[in-house]
């Protein structure tokens, strides 16, 4: 079944367009509908409907939608289509016994399918033509008497034709849309074709470019090829040159070898020569080094060689002397017979001659020479050379004369020296009898004088001490550190220490090991031109004094202790009373007890002050000194006195002028107390609302602390006694009757002990400024 169907479709496709079939089918259906609607009309027969249905089905089947891609307006196809349709339809009609009506039906169909075949006009013409044909057929049959052409008949025909027009219009409308779609498809296809063409063009142009590039590359290759050939040529040339060079090299090598041989020969001769030269040089050096004149002459006395000394002595240069006769130069100053004697000895006797002769230098100066000439003989015994050695002995001779003269003078001087010696000895005797030990040294520290007392003190003998360094005999040390020797004289001479405090004290270890308390002083010895010659140290045994001091000190301590014991009892008892520890103290009693308390405090302070002053007086070594911060201490003092300041309602100003790092070398305790004393005085003697100003400044290695108050001042006539012990100015006594008068003397001692000074400026009623100056302590020490 399928094969027949496919064959049928194939035939249809090949010779027709598929589209009409579809349309025909559709028309058939339309006709069927038409027939059904008009079935009551006389010529409409049921068989026709059947025909139409069958035919429609056949055309539909035949139209196989997929074949519609064939282009529709191929005119040949549509003519063939039409003929085929007509043929097939007629055949079917004929064999199925159709009537006239059926023929007109055929042409109706044609009319209806007219829109398929072309433009509107073609379509209308075809419909009109079909209509006319139908009408013609009907007219024919009417003539044959088969059909009556009545109004109904014509009317129905016209109606049919009108219907055909309408249907055709509808169908045409759909067709045109369809055509439009097809048009678009065609355009699209056309665009694609164009694009294809463009691609082709592009491909073509790329191909061209490739071809061109290939051509270029080809050219470059050719060019490179040429270059390579050229390079190859050059290389060949280079190879050739290389070969030539090689030849030359070997030639040079041969030449070099020849030269080396020659040089070796030369070197050998040189070596021999230099050897001989060295020997000669050695001789010449020896000769030139000599202070004596050395001359070598030939047998006739012509100078062949003369040394440097010869030049100096005679005044004639080597050039001037060589080749000449010495007699003509510096000789010929003495009598003939001297020369005759000389020549006789050396020429005839052929033996050395020694003597003294006067010569004359080039500048005319005469000089005395000691002369010695030796002949040098050859193998035969003939004189080959003369060697002469001369020495200028003019000065020597002169000196000898002088010495003799001096000896006579010395003899005279000796007598006066003896006298002087006697006086020195008596001085020495005086010195010896000095009770203190006296040691004098030179600037090196070597002992030049060591008296008896020194011997006694040190236990060392004078002979042992003299000439040796002082510190070999004198072993000084600090009581606190017996192992470390303090070389006092060495330090003093080196300028390391001044030891200028009145009576420096140290310990001395004697030769026998015993230890002595020594007080000493040391100073420079100057000659009459004020130049330092050495130093002199005077020392004294102060052991006994020390003992005495210790006793005094002990006594003071004990005294202080005895005074303090009842005082502390009184003080604490008063504290208990005032603190209501032994029952409530009556109001009236309070004041009295307070009074007692104040006086007790005065007594306690007095005891403390007395003890301090006495200690200082005895020159006791008190607190050890150490580097102390100036600003630190002042700040501490001001802080500790804050209560006192507030009570007295004064203002404190402190200007440290950036000296925060400045230090001084002093006992911290003493420094604190000294500052405290001055500051507390300043506060005490300044009325309320006054100002105390403290300024720290530095100049020339000294730090200066100025404490200025706006207080009662010190009257001019009382100023000079200010630092005396127990002294108090009248106005001070009035302001504060309680002071002991010891404060400033203590301050003075403390500060002076550290190498500083205390001073003041004051105007009564205006105020006082105290100045404490101390040397600045620097770390480098």
């Amino acid at each position, binding site marked *: 079944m399928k094969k027949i169907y496919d064959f049928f479709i194939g035939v249809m496709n090949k010779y027709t367009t598929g589209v009409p079939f579809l349309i025909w089918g559709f028309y058939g259906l339309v006709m069927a509908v038409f027939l059904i609607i008009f079935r009551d009309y006389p010529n409409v027969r049921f068989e026709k409907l059947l025909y139409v249905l069958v035919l429609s089905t056949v055309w539909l089947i035949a139209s196989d939608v997929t074949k519609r891609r064939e282009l529709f307006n191929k005119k040949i196809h549509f003519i063939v289509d039409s003929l085929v349709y007509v043929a097939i339809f007629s055949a079917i009609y004929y064999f199925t016994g159709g009537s006239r009506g059926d023929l007109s039906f055929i042409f109706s169909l044609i009319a209806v399918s007219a829109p398929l075949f072309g433009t509107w006009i073609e379509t209308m013409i075809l419909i009109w033509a079909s209509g006319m044909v139908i009408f013609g057929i009907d007219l024919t049959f009417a003539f044959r008497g088969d059909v009556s052409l009545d109004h109904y008949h014509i009317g129905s025909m016209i109606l049919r034709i009108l219907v055909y027009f309408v249907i055709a219009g509808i169908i045409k409308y759909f067709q045109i849309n369809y055509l439009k779609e097809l048009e678009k498809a065609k355009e699209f296809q056309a665009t694609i074709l164009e694009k294809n063409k463009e691609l082709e063009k592009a491909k073509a142009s790329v191909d061209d470019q490739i071809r061109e590039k290939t051509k270029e590359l080809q050219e470059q290759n050719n060019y490179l090829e040429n270059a390579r050939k050229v390079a190859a040529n050059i290389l060949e040339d280079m190879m050739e040159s290389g070969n030539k060079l090689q030849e030359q090299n070997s030639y040079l090598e041969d030449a070099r070898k020849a030269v080396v041989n020659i040089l070796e020969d030369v070197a050998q001769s040189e070596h021999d020569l230099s050897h001989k030269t060295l020997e000669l040089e050695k001789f010449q050096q020896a000769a030139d080094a000599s202070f004596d004149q050395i001359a070598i002459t030939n047998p006739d006395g012509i100078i062949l060689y003369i040394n440097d000394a010869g030049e100096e002595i005679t005044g004639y240069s080597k050039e001037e002397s060589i080749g000449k006769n010495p007699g003509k130069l510096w000789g010929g100053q003495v009598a003939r017979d001297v020369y005759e004697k000389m020549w006789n000895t050396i020429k005839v006797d052929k033996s050395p001659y020694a003597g003294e002769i006067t010569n004359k230098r080039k500048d005319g100066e005469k000089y005395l020479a000691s002369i010695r000439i030796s002949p040098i003989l050859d193998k035969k015994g003939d004189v080959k050379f003369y060697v002469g050695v001369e020495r200028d002995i003019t000065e020597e001779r002169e000196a000898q004369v002088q010495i003799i003269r001096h000896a006579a003078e010395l003899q005279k001087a000796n007598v006066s020296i003896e006298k002087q010696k006697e006086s020195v000895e008596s001085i020495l005797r005086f010195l010896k009898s000095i009770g203190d030990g006296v040691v004098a040294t030179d600037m090196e520290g070597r002992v030049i004088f060591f008296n008896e007392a020194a011997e006694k003190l040190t236990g060392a003998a004078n002979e042992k001490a003299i000439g040796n360094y002082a510190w070999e005999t004198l072993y000084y040390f600090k009581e606190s550190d017996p192992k470390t020797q303090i070389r006092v004289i060495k330090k003093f001479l080196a300028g390391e220490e001044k030891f200028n405090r009145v009576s420096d004290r140290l310990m001395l270890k004697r030769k026998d090991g015993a230890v002595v308390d020594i007080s000493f002083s040391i100073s420079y010895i100057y000659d009459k031109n004020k130049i330092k010659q050495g130093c002199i140290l005077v020392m004294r045994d102060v052991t006994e004094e020390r003992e005495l001091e210790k006793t005094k000190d002990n006594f003071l*301590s004990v005294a202080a202790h005895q005074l*303090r014991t009842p005082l502390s009892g009184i003080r604490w008892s008063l504290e*208990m009373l005032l603190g209501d520890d032994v029952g409530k103290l009556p109001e009236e009693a309070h004041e009295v007890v307070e009074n007692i308390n104040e006086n007790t405090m005065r007594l306690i302070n007095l005891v403390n002050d007395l*003890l301090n002053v006495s200690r200082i007086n005895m020159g006791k070594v008190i607190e050890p000194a150490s580097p102390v911060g100036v600003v630190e201490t002042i700040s501490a003092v001001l802080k500790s006195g804050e209560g006192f300041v507030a009570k007295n309602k004064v203002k404190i100003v402190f200007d440290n002028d950036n000296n925060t790092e400045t230090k001084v070398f002093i006992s911290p305790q003493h420094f604190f107390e000294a500052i405290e004393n001055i500051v507390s005085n300043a506060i005490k003697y300044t009325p309320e609302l006054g100002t105390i100003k403290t300024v720290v400044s530095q100049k020339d290695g000294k730090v200066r602390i100025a404490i200025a108050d706006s207080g009662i001042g010190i009257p001019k006539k009382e100023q000079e006694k200010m630092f005396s012990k127990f002294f108090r100015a009248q106005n001070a006594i009035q302001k504060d009757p309680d002071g002991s008068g010891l404060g400033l003397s203590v301050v003075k001692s403390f500060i002076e002990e550290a190498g500083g000074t205390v001073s003041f400026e004051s105007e009564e009623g205006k105020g006082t400024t105290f100045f404490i100056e101390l040397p600045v302590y620097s770390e480098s020490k």
Partner: protein
Amino acid sequence: MNNPPCILIAEDDKFLVKVYTTKLSKEGFQVEVASNGEEALKLAREKNPDLIFCDLMMPIKDGFEVLKELKADTKLKKIKVVILSNLSQEEDKKRVMDLGAEEYIVKANVPFSEVIALAKKYLAK
């Protein structure tokens, strides 16, 4: 603590002793008194005080000796000792500190309130 802290006073001045006992007892301390060095050592061994206020100038044995013996004794050396004296020599102070005392106070120079403060300070540790 049930037991109040015990302070031993070594002092030969009877009047000062009165001040010590009155004031220190008031503060709540237990006070033992020795009037010479020998007694001080004996009491130290017996009562094992927490703190000793010791005078220097005492009969039989002085404060230096007492301090020395206290610090030489393994049992007693832990007791803190404050020297209260009226000597003011640097050497005495140094000697005392070298022997192991906690502090050196000159009695006449301090109010008694300071002594109380010291007691509290060393008993608090």
